[in-house]
């Protein structure tokens, strides 16, 4: 059979990219698709960020100044949904597209056409979500967790569009994940055993598994909502024998693994960068893999820590408290390994390394506040206050998003062939670092002092810290414009990058030229 292949009409691997717009519409190339995902994610990051600016502007002072409470709720909801499903997740999928095939020595993703489909669903889905702003009754206003009955009995009509948008986003994620898993399982170069895989690949293998396991559950949840709203069922309606709390169980059975979906790839990225700039081999590779696997498995049995106050049976409160605390063990292992990798390394502090170190430190702060929240009786105090907001923003912004920025600085020379401007990169880092902490650290305090989350107005005693938090947010927001400038500048030109780019970098992607040729590893490399 192999003879047929070689003689067949065109050997596409010598082609470069097609010209014009159709290159992007029809492409099956994992690098093109990776770029599409990354640009899409960045656009969503800016849109979701603009909404955050509206939120922080309203909260700058107590009282209602800028927006109506109804609109505030829509901004809050869309901000959460867009950042989670539009910014963080697609960015990681984009990185997986660019990197996984190169890291395992594969010619492309396993199912290239489906790969294109997974991407192109997203612009449509988010167009629907955003267009709901202009529909009668406004956009979804029930928070990114869309609890019933807010999202059913009391929802605006646009909820139907929201439900279907979630359906197709789910389809996109599932197809994307199938592609990643199959690529990793089936396309590794000879000699690359599982335990030789780069950690980013491992992190994505586990993430993709989580995605395939929980996105369908989310689809089930929104389907039940749809039926309750329009077709008379009573899943979430106690009057008919259902239970609104059932919604929360299903949502968080998806939702908790989802938060790990947004952090596991970050773990992989941090491992690569810290290793490279410490000029040492990563400490504890195998324990890193096991830690990620145990985090993933545990993430299925902790969901009700989001529901401590809804009235769970005592046994459930206890079980979910202990199970949640257990996650701190593998998480601690990872942090220990990163720190130990740096220990006695000959460290240099290029921008990716700065972001990676900040990731380790600030993510750990988020982990600690998570542990506080995991203590059931304490959570009765913290729940639904700004303390929770501080917690998840610490794990998501200087956690997931810093890791994405670190990844962009680290791999952009490989993508574009140009070095980014190190001075500007450092400036971007410090502005972001200061901005993030000024924004979110005070939220711990106002939360502990009792300020509820999801409010457009608040009591006077919270005024000072809210104003500081808003100033931090504007700083953080503004510095992302600098990020865009740096990226664009690098795409246009700059100092030429060598294939290896960084002195300490190792792995297959650093063996090909920079920029990476349109097709890499059409015949698999040998891995020892």
């Amino acid at each position, binding site marked *: *059979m*192999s003879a*047929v*292949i070689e003689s*067949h009409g065109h050997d*596409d691997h010598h*082609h470069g990219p097609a010209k014009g717009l159709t290159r992007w*519409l*029809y*492409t*099956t190339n994992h690098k093109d698709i990776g770029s599409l995902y990354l640009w899409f994610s960045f656009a969503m990051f800016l849109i979701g960020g603009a909404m955050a600016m509206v939120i922080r502007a309203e909260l700058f002072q107590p009282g209602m100044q800028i927006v109506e409470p109804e609109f505030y709720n829509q901004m809050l909801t869309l901000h959460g949904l867009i950042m989670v499903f539009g910014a963080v997740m697609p960015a990681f999928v984009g990185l997986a597209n660019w990197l996984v095939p190169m890291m395992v020595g594969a*010619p*492309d993703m*396993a*199912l*290239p*056409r*489906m790969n*294109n*489909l997974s991407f*192109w*669903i997203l612009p*449509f889905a988010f167009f*629907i979500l955003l267009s709901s702003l202009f529909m009668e009754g406004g956009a979804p206003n029930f928070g990114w967790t869309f609890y019933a009955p807010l999202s059913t009995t009391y929802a605006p*009509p646009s909820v*139907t*569009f929201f*439900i*279907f948008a979630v359906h*197709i986003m789910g389809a996109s994620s*599932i197809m994307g*994940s*199938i592609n990643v898993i*199959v690529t990793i399982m*089936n*396309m590794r170069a000879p000699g690359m055993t599982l335990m030789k895989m780069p950690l980013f690949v491992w992190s994505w293998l586990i993430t993709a598994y989580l995605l*395939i*396991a929980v*996105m*369908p559950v989310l689809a*089930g*949840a929104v389907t*039940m909502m*749809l*039926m309750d709203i329009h077709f*008379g*069922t*009573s*899943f979430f309606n*106690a*009057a*008919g*024998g*259902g*239970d609104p*709390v*059932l919604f929360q*169980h299903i949502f968080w*059975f998806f939702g908790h693994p989802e938060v790990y979906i947004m952090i596991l790839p970050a773990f992989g990225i941090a491992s690569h960068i810290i290793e490279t700039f410490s000029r040492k081999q990563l400490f504890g590779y195998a324990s890193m893999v096991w830690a990620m696997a145990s985090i993933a498995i545990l993430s299925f049995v902790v969901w009700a820590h989001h529901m401590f106050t809804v009235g769970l*049976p005592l046994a459930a409160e206890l079980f979910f408290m202990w199970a949640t605390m257990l996650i701190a063990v593998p998480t601690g292992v990872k942090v220990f390994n990163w720190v130990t990798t740096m220990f006695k390394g000959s460290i240099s502090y290029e921008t990716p390394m700065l972001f990676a170190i900040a990731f380790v430190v600030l993510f750990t702060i988020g982990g600690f506040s998570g542990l506080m929240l995991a203590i059931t009786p304490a959570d009765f105090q913290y729940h639904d206050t700004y303390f929770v907001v501080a917690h998840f923003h610490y794990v998501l912004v200087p956690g997931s998003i810093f890791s994405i920025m670190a990844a962009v600085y680290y791999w952009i020379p490989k993508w574009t062939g140009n070095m980014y401007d190190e001075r500007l990169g450092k400036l971007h880092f410090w502005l972001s670092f200061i901005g993030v902490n000024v924004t979110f650290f005070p939220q711990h305090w106002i939360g502990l002092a009792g300020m509820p989350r999801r409010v457009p107005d608040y009591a006077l005693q919270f005024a000072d810290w809210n104003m500081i938090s808003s100033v931090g947010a504007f700083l953080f927001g503004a510095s992302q414009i600098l990020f865009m400038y740096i990226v664009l500048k690098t795409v246009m030109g700059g100092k030429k990058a060598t294939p290896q780019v960084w002195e300490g970098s190792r792995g297959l992607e650093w063996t090909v030229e920079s920029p990476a040729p349109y097709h890499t590893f059409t015949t698999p490399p040998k891995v020892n």
Partner: protein
Amino acid sequence: MSYQKYYVPEDSKYPIYIATALFLLVMGAAGTINDLGKPESNSVYILYSGFAVFAITLYFWFRAVIREHIAGLDSAQLQKSFVFGMGWFIFSEVMFFAAFFGALFYVRNFSVPWLGGDGEKGLANMLWEGFEASWPVMSTPDAGSAFVLADKSMSWPGWGNALKWLPLWNTIVLLSSSVTVHFAHLALKNDNKKSFNTWLGVTVTLALIFVGLQAAEYYEAYAHYGLTLNSGIYGSTFFMLTGFHGFHVMMGGFMLAVMLSRSVFYNHFDPHNHFGFEAASWYWHFVDVVWVMLFLFVYIL
């Protein structure tokens, strides 16, 4: 065997058409549902056009893949990708059903007993005092005009009436179809195309019978039992679980029918090359297993 290149199609128009079709489909569906009862709404045409683009593109996409296979473009490695891909797709379907089974489990074991005053959260009974928990829930906690109460459920009717009980026949039909599709597979492996076609034809027929029986059951429920989507949590879980299962039976049956026509009209498939059929048959077995769970948890227990 020396290394055979992994086939990466150069570019493709199909995915963007499918993405557009999905966009039209969901815009049309959401618009139609929101406009239910408004005859002037045009959304349903968006829905139809989305469906048309979807179906047509899918046809050409699969045709292209089949042609690539016949041209020998796909290596053993690529075929393995399809195998893995199908396997993980079925896993995602399992998790979709898991959400509904989980809901059923939760209402039966927790929320309904609580509403009836039992268990640790029996306090909930104060919402509708006098509500007595039972399964199937035949009278909802709030028996107001929002619900049309059923007077009969679909549960196991006792040995005396077992033979008149449609779900039992459904079970027999679907379980035997799993066996017949397996016979078809064995026949194909023995290179007996005639026997393959026959067994596959029998399987597709059984699928049709199943769908027919289920339609009869639904008719029965709506017309004679008063059991509808509107009759509280029992009706909700019953129709959602059996309904989505039925929908999957139709999809699986359609896939098998496509495989049958490929075999009959185009003489596709030989003892070693028949992944399309195999994938459809895995899907069929999956649908079958879901039914067994349904039979157990929705009908019998």
